């Protein structure tokens, strides 16, 4: 294993340790939220950045896993491996169902079918009050735990979210480099040729969607424990659209940019929201400016800058 392959995760762990030691409660919970949503955005990057599959229903995978974990926690308690297992299972299962629906059509129809599918999941979460709490969502969840250890405090949540994010980043990298990931790129670049090579487009895309679903599900399963709450906006299509925006801000196809974009977006939302009622307007302007001014995203802009710095 080369040094550079280890260097990044090590740097990540070191940064996490420093942040965990130095930050306050509010910041740590906020950072945990960034890391969890960022992981979901990372999983979306696999679909959009490598498969060209623009899903406007990705929040359904993340949010349904969050609900599944929250509901399970009320009955079984919030043991970490159980929550993760349930979230991953839910995310994968919903992704499988979604794949059967959306992967049969071309790009434009896929986008709209994914939106429809996501809204169906939202309708279920919003209207099935006895189980999901309807518009109010679910509150009063037990804190996360692992055997005898309680993991409900901000520091533990942050560390868990960080480990999950790092792990997911590793999984995503290995996926992209694997034959399956290459095949996914092939289906984006030249779907007809891929068929002429003996690949079935559906099998390639379906597998990618399952991987993304599992990853989004893992992130979703921890999400309710950050604020001990989960509500229907975590499944709504506006979150799906927001995830795409986060991805574009960070840079489509860059993997780690997913976290950058999520951080920038959530920070703006939090700090601008505190400063003016018109934060939606600001967010909208941010979307539009991102698309107009730097469609390649921050990650690539950042890389270009550092590269310029290195080669005079």
């Amino acid at each position, binding site marked *: 294993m080369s040094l550079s392959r280890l260097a990044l995760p090590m740097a990540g762990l070191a940064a996490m340790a420093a942040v965990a030691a130095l930050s306050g409660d509010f910041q740590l919970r906020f950072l945990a939220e960034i890391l969890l949503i960022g992981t979901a955005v990372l999983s979306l990057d696999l679909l*959009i950045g490598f498969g060209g599959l*623009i899903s*406007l229903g990705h929040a359904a995978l993340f949010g349904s896993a969050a609900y599944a974990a929250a509901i399970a926690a009320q009955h079984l308690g919030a043991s970490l491996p159980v929550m993760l297992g349930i979230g991953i299972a839910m995310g994968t299962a919903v992704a499988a169902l979604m794949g059967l*629906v959306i992967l*049969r*059509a071309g*790009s*434009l*129809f896929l*986008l*709209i*079918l994914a*939106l*429809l*599918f996501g*809204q*169906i999941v939202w*309708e*279920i979460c919003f*209207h099935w009050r006895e189980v999901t709490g309807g518009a109010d969502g679910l509150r009063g969840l037990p804190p996360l735990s692992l055997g005898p250890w309680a993991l409900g405090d901000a520091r533990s949540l942050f560390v868990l979210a960080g480990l999950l994010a790092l792990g997911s980043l590793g999984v995503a990298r290995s996926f992209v480099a694997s034959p399956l990931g290459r095949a996914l790129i092939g289906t984006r670049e030249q779907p*007809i040729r891929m068929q002429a090579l003996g690949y079935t487009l559906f099998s390639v895309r379906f597998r990618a969607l399952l991987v993304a679903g599992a990853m989004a599900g893992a992130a979703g399963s921890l999400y309710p424990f950050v604020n001990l709450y989960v509500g229907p906006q975590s499944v709504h*299509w*506006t979150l799906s*659209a927001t995830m*795409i*925006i986060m991805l*574009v801000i960070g840079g*489509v196809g860059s993997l780690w940019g997913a976290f950058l974009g999520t951080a920038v977006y959530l920070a703006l939302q939090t700090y601008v929201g505190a400063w003016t009622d*018109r934060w*939606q*307007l600001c*967010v*909208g*302007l*941010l*979307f*539009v400016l*991102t*698309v*107009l001014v730097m*469609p390649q995203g921050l990650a690539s802009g950042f890389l270009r800058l550092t590269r310029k710095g290195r080669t005079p």
Partner: protein
Amino acid sequence: MMGYAAIQVLNALSFSALLLLTGLGLSVVLSLMNFVNLAHGSFYLLGSYIAVHWLASGAPWWMAFPVAFLATALAGALLERFPLRAFYARPHLMQVLLTYGLSVIFADLMRWGFGAQILSPELPEMLQGVVFLFDMPFPLYRLFIIGAGFAMALALWLLFDRTMWGAVVRAAVSDRGIVETLGIDTRRLFAAVFMLSAGLGGLSGALGAGMLAAYPGLDEEVLILALITVVVGGLGSFGGTVLSALVVGFALTFSKVWFPEFANLAAFSAMIALLLARPNGLVAPPLRQL
């Protein structure tokens, strides 16, 4: 019972008329320019607000509709010039992001300008009240929506099917290259079509205000329904859009009757089932891949 069914059928028809006008606008832009406009719902809601304020102003009531059409068409024209025009040739992802971002901006601007409460228009006297069908009351205004909506759709059909301009648009939908080699300025054509699309959105909003009212968030609801209508109908087909507006309108209305709590769920699922059976829509255009 008979009366109740008739009332629901009329309800479905009035809803279908709104979907038809909104959907046609979205559909023509999608199939002609291959452009996904997620800000289409904003035109609808803007049209609704214009109608509400016009009808409250005391000016001749019937002018609310042409005014809403023209105002939103103008807004569409400005928007088309910048920034949408530059995005016709960009990937769908970028179009989606840009227009979604715009819709968020417009939603907040409208919330700012028109308030967050639910506004219902003061209907003109001659459209107030109810008519009795099989001894059941039915709002007169909804009959007006059905009449005006389908009359407008008929006019559009004549425009697309019987005029030279319509022939050019149809030709451009099936083969962009042909129209360009004929020396027709596609830029102006696209601008005109986009204006028409925006205007239709505003007009359906103005008509729909008397039925659905106007409130923040309605733009999104309408957008999703219009997208469904277009997709279910099949791209690039006028007849398909008419058929699917009816299908979606009836499906939503009757699922509200039968499963009030899970109306959208039932209707959306039905639409997905329909699309699984006919992945290219009810009236599928021929596609040339190779």
